[in-house]
């Protein structure tokens, strides 16, 4: 399904299928992720949303039973090609998880720069700049600028999640994948994360998995509805949520199942 937007798509999936052992979890999914926009993946539990997200940054390779068919291209380049290292893909496609996980043995600033330092960057000036830049981008700078050396785990749940976002942004990825980033947070913290996403989309391509349809309606430009591993419908969010083309989408949105 082609989506018209001002830029060429940042990520394209063609006939993507993922198997865990003999179990086929994703069935020939093809879709274009628009650049500098928010794309939401919605669907009932077990429909393959997180599996699809993790295929976009080669995270399935950590699972020895996972097998993939099909193709995923990042700005035209096949990310699963033989000569492409997963580590490089993951620096261009970052990920934020459902449960915030700042490294407990590190301070706030150390957490932000860990991706840079462990990949070899030593220049203290650049690191200091990135700390401020990333924390500003994730709307956390004002709250922590006076205690950058405090342990990361001393922050509240919502702050920790924003720290994880800053950590992912510090590596300067092109795409940010978010797996239900606000589902463990209270409504106020959730609302801050959503505002942050709306800010970030000016610079980054964002793909967000969410089980909260209203969240998708609030922040996503495009929405994909997955069911039992298949892509049922993919369109502009406003269209899907007011007048979906597929009956299964309509049934899901009106609460008849899922």
């Amino acid at each position: 399904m082609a989506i018209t937007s001002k830029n060429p798509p940042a990520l394209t999936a063609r006939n993507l299928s993922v198997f865990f052992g003999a179990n086929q979890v994703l069935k020939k999914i093809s879709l274009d992720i628009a650049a500098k926009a928010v794309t939401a993946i919605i669907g009932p539990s077990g429909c393959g949303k997180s599996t699809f997200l993790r295929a976009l940054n080669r995270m399935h390779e950590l699972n020895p039973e996972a097998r993939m068919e099909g193709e995923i291209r990042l700005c035209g380049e096949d990310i699963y090609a033989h000569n492409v290292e997963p580590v490089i893909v993951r620096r261009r496609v970052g990920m934020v998880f459902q449960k915030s996980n700042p490294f407990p043995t590190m301070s706030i600033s150390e957490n932000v720069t860990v991706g840079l330092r462990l990949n070899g960057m030593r220049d203290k000036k650049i690191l200091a700049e990135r700390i401020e830049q990333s924390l500003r981008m994730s709307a956390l700078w004002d709250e922590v600028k006076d205690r950058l050396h405090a342990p990361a785990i001393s922050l509240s749940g919502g702050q920790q999640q924003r720290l994880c976002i800053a950590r992912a942004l510090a590596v300067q990825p092109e795409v940010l994948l978010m797996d239900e980033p606000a589902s463990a947070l209270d409504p106020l913290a959730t609302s801050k994360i959503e505002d942050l996403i709306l800010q970030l989309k000016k610079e980054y391509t964002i793909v967000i998995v969410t089980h909260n349809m209203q969240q998708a309606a609030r922040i996503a430009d495009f929405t994909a509805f997955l069911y039992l591993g298949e892509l049922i419908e993919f369109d502009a969010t406003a269209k899907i949520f007011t007048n979906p083309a597929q009956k299964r989408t309509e049934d899901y949105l009106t609460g008849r199942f899922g």
Partner: protein
Amino acid sequence: MTAPNHSWRKFKNVLMQVVAGVCAIIVVTPLLLIYYHLARFGFSSLNLAFFTHLPKPVGELGGGMANALVGTFILLIHAVIIGVPVGVLGGVYLSEYGGTRFNWWIRFTADIINGVPSITWGIVVWGLLVVPMHGFSALAGGVVLGLMMIPLVMRTTEEVLQLVPGGYREAALALGISKWKTIVQIVIRTALKGIVTGVLLALARIAGETAPLLFTAFGNLGWAHSLTEPIDTIPLLIFNYAISPYDDWHRQAWAGALVLLLLVLFINVGVRFLTRDRFQLKG
């Protein structure tokens, strides 16, 4: 609003509480008795001379266990050099790499080895080192203690690494950090206290080993001048003195036992101190 059996149930609750309390006291009592006896019989012998002098020949009073103290120290260092790298890396492999079937066999074997009586280790190393070298040696003693440490450290390291939540590994990998760097800089760093605890506890355990050293280090009433000479350790000295017919040696055996117990106590207290909660976590 009381049910019919209320007073009977209340009595049962109190009864079980008392029984459990008494059992707890029974468990702790032997340890307290040991400390009491050691302190009573050994404390008076603890003086500076005891810690700095060599054993005197039979018949002469006085003397100390300086060589046994140093010997214990040297053998423990050797054990750490042999046991810790292999044990920790083995634990890392079990936790972070490898297919399931192979790992299962390794764990199974390690658990069996942990249960093997330590004297068997002594005989094995006797055959491997003492016989070819035509003599007992500190080296053999260090090797046997190190070999005993390996399965202990490997299993505790693996368990501690498994306690590190998978979320940290995922987050690190998602940042484009390579697997080995993730393991060293994130996983091991997070579990470091636990790994050190495991090493210290293994040390506390082998510090008191006597049987395997009977065939390897053998014991020495004087200084060992090189690693290929027999060497004395505190438990060996206690053993030799205790089975001797000499009262003065008996007295020193008590003192040695007290020192050994204090050493083990010191290591355990150190472990508690290291693993204390330093931060108040926010909700």
